[in-house]
Structures are given as C-alpha cells and as structure tokens.
C-alpha cells in the first residue's frame, strides 16, 4: 500500500546520498591538510553544512515530507542562527564596549587623525635630530668617514 504521504525512497537514492556523504568526509579531511588560513573554518563548516543538508533532505526525507515538518525545522534553524549571531555580536566586541570615555569612538578617531595631519605639516627643518638629517653641512664629513672605513 502506498499512501501519498509515505514516499518510499529508492535504495539507489539512499546509496548515492551515502556515497556523497563519504566523499564529502574524505574531502573535508583532505582540505584540513591544505593551509587555507582564515578560510579553513568557513570551508570546514560549509562542507559540514552540505553533509547535514543531504542527511536532512534524503535520509530524513524532509524533501518528500509534509511541508509543516520542513517549516518546523526551518524555524528551528533560524532560531539557532539568531542564538549564535546575537551572542557573537556581544562577545566578539567586548573590548570595544570597555571604552567608557565621554567622547565617542568616532570623535577619538577624528582627533587622532587631526593630530597626525598636524604632525605631517611640521616643516622638515624642525624634525632634524640625527647627523644624517643635515645633508648640507655634514654631508662631506659623512662621506669622508665612509671613505676612511673603506680604505
């Protein structure tokens, strides 16, 4: 007896999905030995999410199931995303939140920029500290000194 709601997944489909899952497992292990830098985490999680999607759609047959089950599952996953994202919004930026200055961070940044620009405007004669900063008067001496060193 085959009811509309009782979709029997063909054995071939189940085996194909299983093959895909094994392939992705081997892939994720292989990729772990490739230095991907900052991409390593997103790639690993992406492969895991692909595998989970295969399991949900075919092994759990959500693709052929009553849509209300898919809706339940989707809402649950959205809640998990909210859980992770909103927690990370807090914990990932705690250092910045420790700033209790009266000025806003924007104001502090603008002040720093202004100070830097002012420094750049200082004429170069005022910034001379080392002998090498005086090429006109001591350039000859420096040249002589290096000449002594060579000989």
């Amino acid at each position: 007896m085959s009811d509309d709601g009782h979709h029997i997944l063909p054995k071939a489909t189940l085996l194909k999905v299983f093959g895909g899952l094994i392939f992705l497992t081997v892939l994720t292990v292989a990729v772990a030995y490739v230095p991907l830098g900052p991409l390593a985490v997103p790639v690993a999680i992406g492969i895991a999410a692909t595998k989970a999607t295969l399991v949900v759609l075919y092994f759990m047959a959500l693709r052929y199931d009553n849509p209300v089950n898919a809706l339940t599952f989707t809402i649950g996953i959205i809640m998990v995303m909210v859980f992770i994202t909103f927690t990370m919004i807090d914990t990932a930026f705690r250092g910045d939140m420790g700033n209790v200055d009266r000025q806003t961070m924007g104001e502090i940044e603008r002040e720093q920029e202004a100070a830097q620009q002012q420094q750049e405007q200082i004429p170069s004669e005022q910034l001379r500290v080392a002998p090498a900063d005086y090429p006109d008067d001591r350039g000859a001496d420096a040249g002589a000194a290096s000449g002594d060193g060579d000989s």
Partner: protein
Amino acid sequence: MATDTDIAPAPTETDHHDHPAHLQHHFVSSEQQFDSAKLGMWLFLITEILLFSAMFVAYAVYRQWHPETFVAASETLNVTMGTINTIVLLTSSLTVALSIHYIQKDEVKKCIYNLGATLVLAGGFMVIKYFEYTSKFEHGAYPGGMFDPHGGHYAQLADVPFASQFFSIYFVMTGIHGLHVIIGMAVIGWVAVRAWMGSFSSEYYTPVELTGLYWHLVDIVWIFLFPMLYLI
C-alpha cells in the same frame, strides 16, 4: 467504539471499517496519526538541536576569543579515529534509512537486519570513543580544573594558555553526543525487538520512522562536531 478489552480482529487492507490495532481512538485515520507523531518528533528534534546549539555557541565564543588555543589543542586529537567514527556513524545512518525502506516494503527481516547493523555500528562508535577518551585521560587531558597535560604530544599543551577550555568543550560536547548515541542504541534495540515480534508492517511503522529521524539527528550533530574539534 472499541475498548481495551474489546480486541478487534486483525486488520486487513481491504477492511477499513474496523480500527487497525495500532490506530488510537483520538485519531481519524492512520495517516493523521502518523503525521501527528512525525510533527511531534520534529518538534522534539528542534529542542535537541537547540540543546546542542548552546554548546556550539560556547565553542564559537571561546574559539573567537582564543583561536590559537583551539588550533593547537585540536591538533592533539586523533584525526584517524575521528574520521573512522564519522564513516561509522554515516554508515549507521544509511542502515537505519534502509531499515525504514524495507519496512515500507513489508520486508520485515531485512528491516531487522539493518536495525541490527545500526546497533553494531553505534556500538563500534562508542568503542572507538572509549579508546580516544582513555588515551586523553592517560595524559591528563581532563576537562576544566583537572587539566594537567603530560606525556606524548599533550605535553606542549601545558604552555598553551586556555587549553583546558578546549578540552572542557570537547568532553562536554562529545560526552552529551555519546549519551545520545547510547540512548539511540537502547531505542533501536527496542524497535528491533518489536519488529521481530511482528508489530510493524508497511501499514504501521511509526516507531521505526521516528527512531530513524532521531538517529539521523545524532549523525548530523557528529557531522558538525568532527571538523570543529578534529580538523580546524
């Protein structure tokens, strides 16, 4: 209205006027009963996903705070054992899906064999997990305050700040996942016995279907745990 003492004759496919033995009074049809049970199971699975997501959040927060610690500590885990366990669990997901496939086609024996295979694979997963745990305990890689790594490649962890955080998360996540595997084994065993007793057919196999859904969720959790703990 049939009562508990009033035993209905064995249901046949042609006779729809009698209640099948599995159909409870408050449902209109087997179909409605099956759909309700399945929606209830999906709701339960969502609570399970939320339970695990709390631990995934803990992982994400601590990894974001101490990424180098997680990279250094995850290198001490045995990737070979983790990979074998992933393949074992994926295979057990296939066998449980096949058991549903066969009960839908009234092939009860093949259904039982596949449930048995699932049970064996789940047991294999726990055995590998046992060896992983004991090798960590030998080297003092305990969770939390008991963390005292020594010997082998664990010794270097003594100089890694916050390394105990990784192992706290590792043991809590794999431990609660392992508990789910053990509960799953008990439920699969019970379903296999009931299938053996002839309780299920293509007409009624709700417990097999729901157990399969639960087992696939346990598999999905491991699909995420494996790369997060062993690979990155």
